[in-house]
Protein backbone atom coordinates (compact mmCIF):
# COMPACT_ATOMS: atom_id res chain seq x y z
CA UNK A 1 0.00 0.00 0.00
CA UNK A 2 2.66 2.51 0.98
CA UNK A 3 6.39 2.43 0.59
CA UNK A 4 7.07 3.10 4.25
CA UNK A 5 5.48 0.28 6.27
CA UNK A 6 5.63 2.04 9.64
CA UNK A 7 3.53 4.95 8.34
CA UNK A 8 0.34 2.96 8.79
CA UNK A 9 1.27 2.24 12.40
CA UNK A 10 1.92 5.93 13.01
CA UNK A 11 -1.46 6.85 11.48
CA UNK A 12 -3.13 4.22 13.64
CA UNK A 13 -1.39 5.61 16.72
CA UNK A 14 -2.55 9.14 15.97
CA UNK A 15 -6.08 7.84 15.44
CA UNK A 16 -6.01 6.04 18.78
CA UNK A 17 -4.70 9.21 20.43
CA UNK A 18 -7.62 11.21 19.00
CA UNK A 19 -10.13 8.57 20.13
CA UNK A 20 -8.62 8.41 23.62
CA UNK A 21 -8.64 12.23 23.86
CA UNK A 22 -12.31 12.32 22.91
CA UNK A 23 -13.39 9.68 25.41
CA UNK A 24 -11.18 11.01 28.22
CA UNK A 25 -12.47 14.55 27.69
CA UNK A 26 -16.04 13.32 27.77
CA UNK A 27 -15.38 11.40 30.99
CA UNK A 28 -13.80 14.48 32.59
CA UNK A 29 -16.77 16.59 31.43
CA UNK A 30 -19.34 14.24 32.91
CA UNK A 31 -17.72 13.08 36.14
CA UNK A 32 -15.73 15.88 37.82
CA UNK A 33 -17.31 17.77 40.67
CA UNK A 34 -16.06 21.24 39.73
CA UNK A 35 -17.84 22.75 36.75
CA UNK A 36 -14.81 24.61 35.42
CA UNK A 37 -12.96 21.30 35.04
CA UNK A 38 -16.03 19.97 33.30
CA UNK A 39 -15.85 22.81 30.75
CA UNK A 40 -12.17 22.04 30.17
CA UNK A 41 -13.13 18.38 29.65
CA UNK A 42 -15.65 19.47 27.02
CA UNK A 43 -12.93 21.48 25.25
CA UNK A 44 -10.55 18.48 25.30
CA UNK A 45 -13.32 16.24 23.99
CA UNK A 46 -14.00 18.65 21.12
CA UNK A 47 -10.33 18.81 20.17
CA UNK A 48 -10.21 15.00 20.00
CA UNK A 49 -13.42 15.04 18.00
CA UNK A 50 -11.87 17.47 15.54
CA UNK A 51 -9.07 14.93 15.02
CA UNK A 52 -11.66 12.23 14.36
CA UNK A 53 -13.39 14.49 11.81
CA UNK A 54 -10.04 14.90 10.12
CA UNK A 55 -9.73 11.13 9.86
CA UNK A 56 -13.25 11.08 8.39
CA UNK A 57 -11.92 13.14 5.47
CA UNK A 58 -13.52 16.46 6.39
CA UNK A 59 -10.83 18.92 7.53
CA UNK A 60 -13.31 21.78 7.13
CA UNK A 61 -15.53 20.34 9.84
CA UNK A 62 -12.50 19.75 12.06
CA UNK A 63 -11.70 23.45 11.78
CA UNK A 64 -15.31 24.45 12.45
CA UNK A 65 -15.50 22.11 15.45
CA UNK A 66 -12.54 23.80 17.11
CA UNK A 67 -13.75 27.27 16.09
CA UNK A 68 -17.34 26.86 17.29
CA UNK A 69 -17.07 24.49 20.23
CA UNK A 70 -13.72 25.35 21.79
CA UNK A 71 -13.71 28.96 20.69
CA UNK A 72 -17.32 29.95 21.24
CA UNK A 73 -19.32 27.42 23.23
CA UNK A 74 -16.74 26.68 25.94
CA UNK A 75 -15.89 30.36 26.38
CA UNK A 76 -19.59 31.20 26.72
CA UNK A 77 -20.05 28.48 29.33
CA UNK A 78 -17.03 29.84 31.21
CA UNK A 79 -18.74 33.24 31.28
CA UNK A 80 -21.87 31.65 32.74
CA UNK A 81 -19.75 29.80 35.32
CA UNK A 82 -18.17 33.11 36.29
CA UNK A 83 -21.60 34.70 36.77
CA UNK A 84 -23.45 31.86 38.48
CA UNK A 85 -21.00 29.86 40.72
CA UNK A 86 -22.50 26.51 39.84
CA UNK A 87 -20.22 24.07 41.65
CA UNK A 88 -21.67 20.69 42.43
CA UNK A 89 -22.89 20.55 46.02
CA UNK A 90 -20.57 18.66 48.35
CA UNK A 91 -21.68 15.13 48.87
CA UNK A 92 -23.73 15.79 51.95
CA UNK A 93 -26.05 12.88 51.25
CA UNK A 94 -24.06 9.65 51.10
CA UNK A 95 -27.22 7.68 51.58
CA UNK A 96 -27.77 4.24 50.14
CA UNK A 97 -30.44 5.49 47.74
CA UNK A 98 -27.97 7.89 46.07
CA UNK A 99 -25.51 5.09 45.40
CA UNK A 100 -28.36 2.84 44.29
CA UNK A 101 -29.62 5.38 41.75
CA UNK A 102 -26.08 5.95 40.54
CA UNK A 103 -25.66 2.24 39.95
CA UNK A 104 -29.02 2.14 38.19
CA UNK A 105 -28.01 5.02 35.88
CA UNK A 106 -24.73 3.25 35.16
CA UNK A 107 -26.58 0.04 34.27
CA UNK A 108 -28.95 1.90 31.94
CA UNK A 109 -25.99 3.56 30.21
CA UNK A 110 -24.15 0.25 29.77
CA UNK A 111 -27.30 -1.28 28.28
CA UNK A 112 -27.74 1.61 25.82
CA UNK A 113 -24.09 1.40 24.80
CA UNK A 114 -24.30 -2.35 24.27
CA UNK A 115 -27.46 -2.04 22.20
CA UNK A 116 -25.95 0.68 20.01
CA UNK A 117 -22.57 -0.94 19.59
CA UNK A 118 -23.66 -4.45 18.66
CA UNK A 119 -25.40 -3.67 15.32
CA UNK A 120 -22.54 -1.45 14.22
CA UNK A 121 -19.89 -4.05 15.00
CA UNK A 122 -21.57 -6.93 13.19
CA UNK A 123 -22.57 -5.20 9.99
CA UNK A 124 -20.91 -5.42 6.61
CA UNK A 125 -19.79 -1.88 5.86
CA UNK A 126 -19.15 -2.00 2.15
CA UNK A 127 -18.69 1.46 0.68
CA UNK A 128 -21.06 2.67 -2.02
CA UNK A 129 -20.08 1.92 -5.60
CA UNK A 130 -19.91 5.47 -6.90
CA UNK A 131 -19.46 8.84 -5.29
CA UNK A 132 -21.16 11.84 -6.81
CA UNK A 133 -18.82 14.44 -5.33
CA UNK A 134 -15.45 14.25 -3.61
CA UNK A 135 -16.56 15.96 -0.40
CA UNK A 136 -13.98 18.73 -0.67
CA UNK A 137 -14.45 22.26 0.64
CA UNK A 138 -15.26 23.47 -2.88
CA UNK A 139 -18.03 20.86 -3.18
CA UNK A 140 -19.41 21.87 0.24
CA UNK A 141 -19.45 25.52 -0.79
CA UNK A 142 -21.24 24.75 -4.03
CA UNK A 143 -23.99 22.72 -2.42
CA UNK A 144 -24.34 25.24 0.45
CA UNK A 145 -25.10 27.96 -2.06
CA UNK A 146 -27.29 25.88 -4.39
CA UNK A 147 -29.12 22.89 -2.88
CA UNK A 148 -29.01 23.99 0.75
CA UNK A 149 -29.24 27.76 0.33
CA UNK A 150 -32.68 27.92 1.97
CA UNK A 151 -31.49 25.95 5.01
CA UNK A 152 -28.38 28.14 5.11
CA UNK A 153 -30.48 31.32 5.25
CA UNK A 154 -32.83 29.78 7.81
CA UNK A 155 -29.94 28.86 10.09
CA UNK A 156 -28.67 32.43 10.00
CA UNK A 157 -32.18 33.58 10.91
CA UNK A 158 -32.31 31.06 13.78
CA UNK A 159 -28.95 32.32 15.09
CA UNK A 160 -30.14 35.93 14.91
CA UNK A 161 -33.33 35.10 16.80
CA UNK A 162 -31.34 33.11 19.36
CA UNK A 163 -29.01 36.06 20.00
CA UNK A 164 -31.86 38.53 20.37
CA UNK A 165 -33.79 36.11 22.57
CA UNK A 166 -30.76 35.46 24.76
CA UNK A 167 -30.25 39.19 25.24
CA UNK A 168 -33.93 39.72 26.06
CA UNK A 169 -34.08 36.84 28.56
CA UNK A 170 -30.82 37.73 30.28
CA UNK A 171 -31.94 41.36 30.63
CA UNK A 172 -35.18 40.71 32.47
CA UNK A 173 -35.04 41.40 36.19
CA UNK A 174 -31.81 43.26 35.87
CA UNK A 175 -33.02 46.53 37.37
CA UNK A 176 -34.54 44.84 40.40
Amino acid at each position, binding site marked *: *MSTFPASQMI*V*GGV*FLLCAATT*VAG*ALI*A*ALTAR*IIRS*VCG*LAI*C*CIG*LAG*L*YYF*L*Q*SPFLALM*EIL*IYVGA*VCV*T*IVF*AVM*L*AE*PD*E*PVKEDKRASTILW*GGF*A*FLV*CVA*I*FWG*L*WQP*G*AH*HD*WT*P*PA*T*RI*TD*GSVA*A*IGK*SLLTTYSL*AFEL*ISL*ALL*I*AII*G*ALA*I*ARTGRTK
Partner: protein
Amino acid sequence: MTPTPLPDRPDLYFAIAALLLVIGIFGLLRRRTLIGMLISGELIFSGASLNLMAFNRFKAPDPTVGQIFVLFLMGLAAAEIAIALSIIIAVYRNYRSVKTKELSELKG
Protein backbone atom coordinates in the same frame (compact mmCIF):
# COMPACT_ATOMS: atom_id res chain seq x y z
CA MET B 1 -5.16 -10.10 3.21
CA THR B 2 -3.95 -7.24 5.34
CA PRO B 3 -6.20 -6.03 8.16
CA THR B 4 -8.07 -2.78 7.61
CA PRO B 5 -6.16 0.20 8.98
CA LEU B 6 -7.69 1.61 12.14
CA PRO B 7 -8.98 4.95 10.74
CA ASP B 8 -10.93 3.07 8.04
CA ARG B 9 -12.94 0.90 10.41
CA PRO B 10 -16.50 2.26 10.81
CA ASP B 11 -17.28 0.24 13.93
CA LEU B 12 -14.65 2.17 15.91
CA TYR B 13 -16.35 5.48 15.06
CA PHE B 14 -19.74 4.08 16.01
CA ALA B 15 -18.32 2.79 19.30
CA ILE B 16 -16.87 6.24 20.11
CA ALA B 17 -20.15 7.94 19.16
CA ALA B 18 -22.12 5.52 21.35
CA LEU B 19 -19.67 6.16 24.21
CA LEU B 20 -20.17 9.92 23.88
CA LEU B 21 -23.96 9.48 23.93
CA VAL B 22 -23.80 7.18 26.96
CA ILE B 23 -21.45 9.44 28.91
CA GLY B 24 -23.75 12.37 28.11
CA ILE B 25 -26.81 10.48 29.34
CA PHE B 26 -24.98 9.45 32.52
CA GLY B 27 -23.98 13.07 33.10
CA LEU B 28 -27.54 14.26 32.50
CA LEU B 29 -28.82 11.78 35.07
CA ARG B 30 -26.16 12.47 37.70
CA ARG B 31 -25.46 16.20 37.45
CA ARG B 32 -27.08 18.43 40.03
CA THR B 33 -26.58 21.83 38.43
CA LEU B 34 -28.05 23.29 35.26
CA ILE B 35 -24.69 24.09 33.66
CA GLY B 36 -23.43 20.56 34.25
CA MET B 37 -26.52 19.18 32.56
CA LEU B 38 -25.98 21.58 29.65
CA ILE B 39 -22.41 20.30 29.18
CA SER B 40 -23.68 16.71 29.19
CA GLY B 41 -26.21 17.70 26.54
CA GLU B 42 -23.36 19.02 24.43
CA LEU B 43 -21.66 15.62 24.71
CA ILE B 44 -24.82 14.00 23.33
CA PHE B 45 -24.79 16.51 20.43
CA SER B 46 -21.17 15.56 19.72
CA GLY B 47 -22.01 11.86 19.69
CA ALA B 48 -24.80 12.48 17.18
CA SER B 49 -22.48 14.53 14.96
CA LEU B 50 -19.77 11.87 15.00
CA ASN B 51 -22.31 9.17 14.14
CA LEU B 52 -23.61 11.18 11.18
CA MET B 53 -20.10 11.91 9.97
CA ALA B 54 -19.15 8.23 10.13
CA PHE B 55 -22.20 7.26 8.05
CA ASN B 56 -21.36 10.10 5.68
CA ARG B 57 -17.82 8.84 5.21
CA PHE B 58 -18.57 5.15 4.80
CA LYS B 59 -22.04 4.91 3.32
CA ALA B 60 -23.20 8.09 1.60
CA PRO B 61 -22.76 8.42 -2.17
CA ASP B 62 -22.57 12.20 -1.77
CA PRO B 63 -20.08 13.00 1.03
CA THR B 64 -21.01 16.69 1.26
CA VAL B 65 -24.50 16.04 2.68
CA GLY B 66 -23.36 14.81 6.08
CA GLN B 67 -20.78 17.57 6.42
CA ILE B 68 -23.39 20.24 5.74
CA PHE B 69 -25.81 18.54 8.13
CA VAL B 70 -23.22 18.52 10.91
CA LEU B 71 -22.36 22.14 10.14
CA PHE B 72 -26.02 23.11 10.63
CA LEU B 73 -26.09 21.00 13.78
CA MET B 74 -23.15 22.96 15.17
CA GLY B 75 -24.91 26.24 14.39
CA LEU B 76 -28.07 25.10 16.13
CA ALA B 77 -26.05 23.84 19.10
CA ALA B 78 -24.43 27.26 19.41
CA ALA B 79 -27.85 28.94 19.33
CA GLU B 80 -29.16 26.49 21.92
CA ILE B 81 -26.19 27.18 24.19
CA ALA B 82 -26.78 30.94 23.96
CA ILE B 83 -30.46 30.60 24.88
CA ALA B 84 -29.86 28.03 27.62
CA LEU B 85 -27.10 30.09 29.25
CA SER B 86 -29.22 33.22 29.26
CA ILE B 87 -32.05 31.24 30.89
CA ILE B 88 -29.54 29.94 33.46
CA ILE B 89 -28.41 33.50 34.21
CA ALA B 90 -32.03 34.60 34.61
CA VAL B 91 -32.73 31.65 36.91
CA TYR B 92 -29.65 32.47 38.98
CA ARG B 93 -30.87 36.04 39.37
CA ASN B 94 -34.18 34.86 40.76
CA TYR B 95 -33.01 31.99 42.97
CA ARG B 96 -29.33 32.82 43.66
CA SER B 97 -28.64 29.19 42.74
CA VAL B 98 -28.57 26.88 39.73
CA LYS B 99 -28.84 23.64 41.68
CA THR B 100 -31.70 21.60 40.31
CA LYS B 101 -32.85 20.61 43.79
CA GLU B 102 -33.63 24.19 44.76
CA LEU B 103 -35.47 25.19 41.59
CA SER B 104 -38.78 23.84 42.77
CA GLU B 105 -41.39 26.56 42.19
CA LEU B 106 -42.93 27.92 39.04
CA LYS B 107 -43.96 31.55 38.38
CA GLY B 108 -41.74 33.00 41.08
